[in-house]
């Protein structure tokens, strides 16, 4: 090892810009790594954004971050900061909590910034006590101290620091106050860690560091500490990281299954440790984890009384608003009114006005893009086929999708407001009671809510559901709620067939929820989905005015991903559709066709259209549009735009489309495409989250069958009222009534009375 190089390196660590990487004993450079850990919705991501200058999305409801995210500290690019998913304990239940725990134990972290919500000190400190036991230097950041001050409470941070044995810093992550102090403190703590890693002058020798940082837990009783010490003696004989041995010893005392699996204890040691645990359990007549939890909360309650001077209790504004919005009778009607208003304004009123401007203006035939491009291409004498490709294909197809951008902008705006103000987490709470009656829980609604933007993160958010059976059911049903990609299709049909009727978009949204609920009832009858209903405990964050930055960020993210998709996937799809619908065999020759019925696409569509005959839209164009919808749901609008020659019509009239669909057919088509298997990106997400080929195919099959059933029933039973049935139609209508009766029977019947054998997917 070149000691001159080390000295030279560390000289620069003292002078000028402070370096925070160190050269280790074996000559490697070790850059500092800081982790931000804390409860859900405590301000971790806000702090992360403030420290790194990143612009991670922050929602005002728990469970937004489900994966860790890394960035570099703004003030010192050598330091890596990691934002972890929120956890309440280091005994994780859900997959994203496991992500946090594993990261804290396995990664070579130099210090932890523990964000503590000062408005919920008791609950937050439970995690803090466990984080301290890990043995990594820790700084407690008391967040939301401005809210505490407003409420009139006072926290003695010095006493809190003394009692916890770690530095405590007051911050407001949102306003950016106290951040410099937090960063300076955490870097100072990180430098003290492990002299076996660092040769920094401030670093302590390993044994001195461990002497200062080892010892009994402040949060357990003397008796429990004695047991923990005894367990640590056994662990010393094993090759585990000594820095974490105290943490593992406490976890073993709690009978933490993950720790037992991880350490893979030899049989004799396991027996001795188990005997120690059983002694405590017998004495206190409680499980090991119950005893430890009780000891921690006893410490925390006493600590809170010591350090917090509470102001006389007043009813907060949040509580006053919640008395109305989460009222046991009014909550659900209010939710229905709110979502109705959101979709009514976005799709029908303001949205339609904005859309008309875009469709008739920017994509219009008078002065819009199609005319400009068409005139330009004509001026440079481009071939007719190329003009057709660009104007009738690309511009018509992509334009049909982008034409609905204003409606989506308005919808995203409202969704961002609802998320930012804190109402979204109330929705999950309100619906929990209803969801339970249908075999689901309010927690399953969070992925569904996210799915209103895009199905991919919605499916991934199912990781917040702890129970395996419920998680699978959530994955299978998330995409029943219309995502933003389906909005152009809904808006197109609402405008072309239903004269911009307000009820089209609203009915599709609430049908999605209804199908999810009925799916819950149906799937719970099957063995693989049977499980005890998990309790739903959620934090209701305080109401706050959504920040302009967060709302703008949310809208920007969604709109830019939509536009990117239009310019890539949809563009390629429109070229394919144009080519296959413009070329074919006509009069015995292959080439551009006069009549689209002779095209290659028509030939394919005319084969698959029979699949959709029972659903009422056995037209090759509809069949093809449905299939292209698997690439991206917006493609349905783009494909129909090309096949029905939108480019040749007065903008926004869609006359050919309106002439081809009766209202019932159009609604049946809409229902099928809204409920069937999602786009390839979402299908890929289902495959990844299911982690099983059988479950993946079960999910896709279930979604497609559900869509087929609903579309079939709606069209066939609806036809009875519309009239004009004959021959095969009558047979299908009878079949629809039978299918509906069977469906109602299966849903309503108690599981043990079902007459057929239950399907078992549990064997993988």
């Amino acid at each position, binding site marked *: 090892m070149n000691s001159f190089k080390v000295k030279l390196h560390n000289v620069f660590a003292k002078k000028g810009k402070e370096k925070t990487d160190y050269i280790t004993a074996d000559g490697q450079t070790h850059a500092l790594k800081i982790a931000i850990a804390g409860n859900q919705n405590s301000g971790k991501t806000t702090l992360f954004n403030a420290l790194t200058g990143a612009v991670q999305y922050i929602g005002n409801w728990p469970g937004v971050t489900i994966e860790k*995210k890394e960035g570099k500290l703004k003030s010192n690019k050598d330091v890596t900061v990691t934002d972890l998913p929120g956890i309440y304990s280091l005994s994780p239940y859900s997959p994203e909590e496991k992500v946090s725990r594993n990261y804290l134990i396995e990664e070579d972290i130099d210090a932890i910034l523990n964000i503590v919500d000062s408005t919920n000190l008791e609950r937050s400190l439970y995690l803090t006590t466990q984080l301290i036991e890990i043995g990594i230097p820790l700084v407690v950041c008391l967040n939301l101290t401005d809210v505490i001050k407003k409420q009139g409470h006072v926290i003695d941070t010095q006493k809190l620091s003394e009692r916890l044995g770690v530095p405590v810093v007051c911050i407001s992550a949102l306003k950016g106050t106290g951040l410099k102090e937090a960063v300076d403190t955490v870097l100072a703590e990180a430098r003290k860690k492990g002299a076996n890693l660092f040769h920094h002058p401030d670093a302590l020798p390993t044994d001195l560091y461990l002497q200062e940082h080892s010892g009994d837990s402040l949060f357990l009783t003397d008796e429990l500490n004695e047991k923990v010490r005894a367990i640590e003696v056994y662990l010393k004989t094993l090759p585990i990281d000594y820095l974490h041995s105290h943490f593992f010893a406490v976890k073993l005392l709690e009978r933490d299954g993950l720790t037992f699996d991880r350490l893979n204890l030899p049989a004799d040691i396991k027996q001795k440790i188990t005997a120690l645990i059983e002694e405590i359990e017998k004495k206190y007549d409680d499980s090991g984890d119950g005893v430890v939890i009780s000891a921690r909360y006893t410490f925390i309650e006493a600590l809170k009384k010591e350090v917090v001077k509470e102001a006389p209790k007043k009813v907060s504004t949040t509580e006053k608003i919640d008395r109305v919005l989460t009222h046991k009778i009014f909550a659900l009607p209010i939710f229905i009114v709110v979502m109705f208003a959101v979709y009514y304004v976005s799709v029908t009123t303001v949205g339609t006005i904005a859309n008309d401007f875009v469709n008739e203006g920017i994509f219009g035939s008078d002065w819009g893009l199609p005319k400009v491009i068409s005139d330009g291409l004509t001026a440079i004498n481009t071939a007719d086929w190329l003009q057709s490709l660009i104007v009738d294909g690309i511009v018509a197809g992509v334009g049909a999708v982008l034409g609905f951008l204003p409606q989506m902008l308005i919808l995203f705006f409202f969704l961002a407001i609802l998320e930012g103000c804190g109402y979204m987490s109330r929705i999950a709470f309100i619906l929990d009671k209803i969801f339970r009656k249908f075999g689901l829980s309010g927690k399953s609604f969070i992925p569904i809510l996210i799915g209103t933007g*895009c199905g991919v993160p919605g499916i991934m958010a199912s990781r917040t559901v702890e129970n395996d059976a419920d998680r699978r059911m959530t994955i299978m049903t998330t995409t029943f709620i219309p995502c933003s990609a389906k909005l152009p299709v809904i808006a197109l049909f609402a405008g072309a067939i239903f004269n911009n009727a307000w009820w089209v978009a609203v009915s599709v949204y609430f049908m999605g929820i209804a199908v999810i609920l009925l799916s819950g009832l149906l799937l719970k009858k099957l063995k693989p989905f049977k499980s005890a209903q998990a309790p739903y405990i959620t934090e209701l964050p305080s109401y706050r005015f959504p920040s302009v930055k967060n709302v703008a960020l949310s809208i920007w993210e969604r709109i830019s991903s939509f536009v990117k998709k239009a310019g890539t996937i949809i563009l390629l799809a429109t070229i394919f559709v144009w080519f296959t619908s413009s070329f074919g065999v006509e009069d015995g020759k292959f080439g551009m066709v006069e009549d689209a019925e002779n095209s290659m696409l028509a030939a394919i569509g005319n084969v698959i259209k029979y699949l959709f005959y029972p659903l009422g839209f056995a037209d090759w164009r509809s069949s093809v549009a449905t299939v292209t919808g698997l690439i991206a749901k917006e493609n349905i609008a783009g494909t129909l735009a090309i096949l029905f020659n939108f480019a040749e019509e007065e903008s926004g009239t869609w006359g050919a489309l309106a002439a081809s669909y009766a209202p019932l057919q159009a609604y049946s088509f809409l229902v099928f495409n809204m409920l069937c298997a999602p786009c390839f990106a979402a299908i890929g997400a289902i495959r990844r989250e299911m982690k099983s080929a059988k479950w993946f195919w079960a999910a896709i099959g279930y979604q497609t069958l559900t869509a087929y059933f609903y579309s079939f029933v709606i069209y066939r039973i609806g036809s009875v009222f519309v009239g004009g049935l004959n021959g095969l139609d009558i047979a299908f209508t009878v079949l629809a009534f039978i299918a509906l009766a069977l469906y109602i029977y299966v849903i309503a019947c108690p599981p043990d009375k079902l007459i057929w054998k239950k399907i078992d997917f549990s064997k993988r």
Partner: protein
Amino acid sequence: MLNNFFTENLGTIIVSAVLIVAVGLIIARLIINKKKGKHACPYCPSASTCPACKGKDGGKSCCEKNEES
């Protein structure tokens, strides 16, 4: 004769070339993203701010990491 062909069809040739290049770039981008495991990222509303999807942390997207776990 070839000169006449190019002169008469110059507009078509240029526009076609631009289109081919654009389509080629799009396809190449999609293939590169798929190889990096970012196949769903462009369509994820959080992709524009996710450091994983931007490759800042070594290029592994959250989708790819989930496949490994």
